[in-house]
């Protein structure tokens, strides 16, 4: 068991390394960079001191060196002008656009991203599991048809549009306030009960929107799995020998149908994270989504790089958790027998 976990963690580290290289290549792809653009702009206005400062930043972050050296410095395995200082040392770089360390700019956004994604995961499971069980046990009834139809619609509606429309009507009909994560009056207030309540109210629409697509997919898959299990002889035996219906459903077939379900978390997470980025942009939630879009547009490379790495590690950790749960849930998987 421990060997399996260790091996998974090692693979994850290797994957992260490859991802970091990919991310770096991608953010380096567009021609030019933030500082050179800025210097040209400043030269045009004749602001000599700012030009000097920008040039200092260029040498400090080694932006005048070859790209592969920049990469090694960024991840922190090669000394830059101030010694080893990169992602591995916990230094996330400098945001040129905000003129602050990346860590200060992202700050709370990281936690809120985490919070929103966790809420979405919980929501997906809370809705998908009961809906799938109902749909599978009441096969070909009106309720089943409704669940299936809702599932298909959930798959087909673009999340951003749903966000926009829900936002509008949630405000008009239920008085839920628009945008952001809490009332703007509470922005700089300490965390009080009132602020938490405001936060929960603001979380409803994003969670619904982010979770809907994933829920639809989960219901479909879970329903199919459960139907497969319900048709198997052991279920018939369990019923025939008089096991109470609930137990005959939940103890064996349900548990069996959970396996592909848990394995699916790995697929679900990248989608949820993607969805949360998109929905945050529409609802202007202070998560990493809007920051990423800005950073990509202005070529604020350390900022963009860090956020991309953050979302990638978020999915990787989620996948690790899902794999470990699977090992715990299904004895056949131990010892890497797949």
């Amino acid at each position: 068991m421990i060997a399996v976990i260790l091996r998974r963690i090692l693979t994850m580290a290797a994957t992260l390394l490859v991802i970091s290289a990919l991310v770096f290549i991608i953010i380096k792809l567009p021609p030019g960079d933030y500082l050179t653009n800025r210097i040209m702009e400043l030269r045009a206005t004749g602001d000599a001191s700012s030009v000097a400062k920008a040039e200092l930043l260029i040498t400090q972050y080694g932006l005048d060196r070859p790209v592969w050296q920049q990469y090694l410095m960024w991840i922190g395995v090669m000394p830059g002008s101030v010694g080893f200082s990169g992602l591995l040392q916990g230094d996330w770089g400098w945001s040129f656009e905000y003129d602050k360390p990346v860590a200060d700019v992202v700050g709370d956004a990281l936690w809120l991203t985490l919070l929103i994604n966790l809420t979405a995961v919980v929501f997906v499971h809370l809705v998908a599991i009961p809906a799938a069980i109902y749909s599978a046990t009441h096969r070909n009834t009106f309720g089943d048809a409704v669940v299936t139809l809702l599932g298909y619609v959930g798959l087909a509606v673009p999340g951003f549009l749903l966000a926009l429309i829900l936002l509008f009507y949630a405000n008009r009909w239920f008085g839920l306030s628009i945008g952001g994560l809490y009332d703007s009056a509470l922005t700089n207030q300490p965390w009080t009960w009132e602020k938490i309540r405001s936060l929960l109210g603001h979380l409803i629409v994003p969670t619904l929107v982010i979770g809907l697509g994933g829920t639809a997919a989960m219901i479909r898959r879970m329903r199919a799995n459960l139907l497969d299990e319900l048709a198997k002889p052991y279920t018939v035996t369990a019923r025939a020998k008089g096991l109470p219906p609930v137990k005959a459903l939940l103890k064996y077939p349900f548990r069996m149908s959970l396996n592909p379900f848990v394995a699916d978390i790995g697929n679900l997470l990248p989608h949820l994270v993607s969805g949360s980025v998109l929905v945050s942009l529409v609802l202007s939630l202070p998560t990493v989504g809007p920051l990423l879009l800005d950073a990509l547009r202005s070529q604020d490379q350390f900022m963009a790089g860090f956020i991309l790495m953050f979302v990638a590690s978020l999915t990787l950790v989620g996948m690790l958790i899902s794999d470990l749960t699977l090992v715990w849930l299904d004895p056949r998987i131990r010892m890497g027998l797949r």
Partner: protein
Amino acid sequence: MDAIPADRHFVDPAPFVPEGGSEGLAGSASAWRLILRKFLRHRFAVASAVALIALYATVPFVELLAPYGQARRNGDFLYAPPQGVHLFHEGRFIGPFVYPYRAHLDLDTFRRDYKIDTAAPQPLRFLCRGDGYDWLGLVHTDLHLVCPPENGTLFVLGTDKLGRDLFSRLIYGARISLTIGLVGVAISFTLGLFFGGIAGYFGGIVDAGVQRLIEVVRSLPELPLWLALSAALPPNWSPLLIFFGITVILGLLDWPGLARAVRGKLLALREEDFVQAAELMGASPARVIGRHLIPNFMSHLIASATLSIPTMILGETALSFLGLGLRPPVTSWGVLLNEAQNLAAVQLYPWLLIPVLPVLVTVLAFNFLGDGLRDAADPYH
């Protein structure tokens, strides 16, 4: 009544043919025939297939079908609401017609108000002369299926902030949005077949390498990566090049699922005798994979490719919506939705949200079609 006498058995007078005559049995029809037969039983899937064929059939004829040209601005009709097409005027049937608008600027709210003047119906014209265009870049013509009435307007779905007809733009957008899914899937299909093929056939270190690659690509959240890649497209590219760039980006991240399926099947199939026979006869790996192995499960691959087209269409829509995808003057459904991005649009000009309907229909149709194909893919099951 031609009753059979009780003491005799019924005998079919037709001559006995051992192989023939059993068209309906699984043993005699080809696999593709069986797949077709099974697919036709799936009513939703068949209906979706018909709908999709109809949608795609419009693609070469968009200029003909759209009442207005793509860039035609009607400066007097900004944000005009949808104009209904009627058949009956004062209880009398007079063919398809519209009632003209009377526009005036409300000086209190600074909004344009459109009043419908029901006194003077304006009949539509059919197969008529309108905005000129080059059909397929070959023939210059100005023929349209339906045109606005003389001195009138025809805004079936309303107009946008520049007074462009939404219905026409929707038809133009269909061309881009529908192609992008197909081209993207073609790219991801090729990549998936290639990587899955070499991983499953050669096994060993190639397999391990491809597996890692799949793992890396699959663990990346799509949208942030799409964003990053689209931001990397040079801003000085022409809209057409951007279109191809976006398609490649969409296809580039979609192949791992397919590659995994191909690999799994190949690992099992390559142990079969017919593979060994082909190898002994000197067939190259490419030939063994492409000619002997892949056709075995082509139907599965087509089904799963169909299911990934909606992802592409939604992906393009999302990217364009955020302003990082296609750029005007290229018109896609996502570009149209980009204009409906704010709450003012939802409240004041709700018809700007209409482009979401074709997205919905297309995505649903592809999902139903894919499900039907997947169920039919294994006719012996």
